[in-house]
């Protein structure tokens, strides 16, 4: 047993060393640089005290929350459906739904432009129908659309993997007890997929908060924190402020994730 512990530590060590050298150490340095600017450590409070930073924080969290909710609903329905029903063309559908997995944020931005941009499909269709051209790619709605587009493929993969592990016998048992399809979804499928939902949702949220490729492509004017940080770093050459902002943003995201996980954990414990 003691021998085994040593082996387990050995297996964990490579990842641990890499992580300490290339993440923990640099982050610590970033933290100190964040406090080394003109305003000193007050830079860390700026995200709350400075109205401009604070409003971008709010809109960042808002768009991430909306993205997560929409993505989980969409991927939950389609993922379970595709895992449960094997029909001709199922494979092709899965392949198409997971295709954008490889798309960088910048490409997603371009896809949004293709749909909702000045020369986009939605604009053309709405112009033909109503005479008015609907263009929203370069706004927060465009960003939301892009993030949902971005998150669906990986969330569907996670949901499908979890749905595969779901014991179909549980469902059959519930149905044999007279549960309607909706009750089966509520009482068996959703609880069974909950861990997958939570982990996929958490990643979804974090990605939406931290990504900046899509916003970068859509417009410099979209007021989300990553864009603000980038502007501080490159245009204003204010490395300290950029460091402080990104550090705070990282902490916020991480806290949200931790809280989500704890809440899920305790409810799981209560159920079982």
């Amino acid at each position, binding site marked *: 047993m003691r021998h085994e512990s040593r082996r387990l530590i050995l297996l964990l060590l490579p990842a641990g060393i890499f992580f300490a050298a290339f993440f923990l150490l640099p982050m610590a340095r970033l933290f100190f640089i964040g406090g080394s600017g003109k305003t000193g450590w007050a830079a860390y409070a700026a995200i709350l005290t400075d109205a401009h930073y604070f409003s971008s924080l709010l809109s960042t969290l808002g768009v991430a929350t909306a993205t997560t909710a929409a993505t989980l609903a969409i991927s939950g329905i389609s993922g379970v459906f595709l895992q449960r029903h094997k029909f001709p063309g199922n494979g092709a559908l899965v392949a198409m739904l997971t295709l954008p997995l490889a798309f960088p944020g910048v490409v997603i931005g371009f896809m949004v432009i293709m749909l909702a941009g000045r020369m986009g499909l939605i604009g053309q269709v709405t112009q033909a129908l109503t005479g008015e051209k609907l263009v929203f790619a370069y706004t927060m709605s465009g960003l939301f659309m892009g993030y949902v587009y971005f998150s669906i493929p990986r969330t569907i993969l996670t949901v499908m*993997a979890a749905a595969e592990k779901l014991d179909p016998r549980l469902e059959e048992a519930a149905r044999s007890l007279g549960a309607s399809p909706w009750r089966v979804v509520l009482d068996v499928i959703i609880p069974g997929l909950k861990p997958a939902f939570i982990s996929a949702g958490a990643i979804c949220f*974090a990605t939406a908060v931290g990504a900046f490729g899509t916003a970068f492509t859509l417009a410099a004017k979209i007021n989300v924190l990553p864009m603000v940080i980038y502007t501080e770093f490159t245009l204003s050459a204010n490395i300290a402020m950029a460091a402080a902002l990104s550090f705070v943003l990282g902490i916020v995201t991480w806290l949200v994730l931790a809280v989500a996980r704890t809440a899920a954990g305790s409810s799981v414990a209560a159920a079982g």
Partner: protein
Amino acid sequence: MKHRGLFLLQLGFTLVVCAFLIVPVILSIMAGLTVNYFVGIESGLTLRWVIEVWNGYRDTIFLSIGLSLACLVVTLILGVPAAYVLAKRQTALTRAMEELLVMPVAVPGLATALALIVTYGSLSGFRTSWGFILVGHVLFTLPFMVRSVLAVLSAIDLKTLEEGAASLGAGFWPRFRDIVLPNCRSGILAGSLMVVTLSMGEFNMTWLLHTPFTKTLPVGLADAYASLRLEVGSAYTLVFFLMIMPLLLALQAFAKPRPAKFVAEETE
């Protein structure tokens, strides 16, 4: 029949989602091949834009392929053993470790890149090599590998399977090789799919980590979107699609779960 209606409803919904994802891809492919997208398909088809992109941005393509494969190798070596340990030992320490490993996903890529630059940016040989970008990519993709493997390992009764193997005389390493690795294969494949594709497309960090000599494909794309006409951007995107498609299909074929359940149903 009620079930049939439900089936069709779900199918319809899934098809709409599919259209949302695929239609812009098709539009952009068309744009990359038309002489003038503003005029429309009537202006004629051409490979001019694609050739222009190939000549101008070839290097970014090769660099991205190499980077993502290197990233895969590193995350496999670091991530799979780590996931195994995390699955096996649920202590405060391993939980903290799991929490920490996910941080590079939680922390915006910009911040990670910034941190790497302020810490290692002065090592000029390292800063200008593709190894610098690789480090960032591994940080970002490692949690995906770990979580994907961990998810599979937590779903199977690893402890009893290992005890079964041990009772047959298998020591630690044989168990790891014969029982643990094969049984988390689906997780490893899903994780690999994630890692390669994420690395291919990583932009948030790479945009800051790259140098003029180490431009990856997404960096080139951003360049093209910002400075060149829509048709060139589309053509570049088309090249990206062409490049990623075989890889994606291959990985999907590998990652496809075995249809074992259906065989079982037939034979019972």
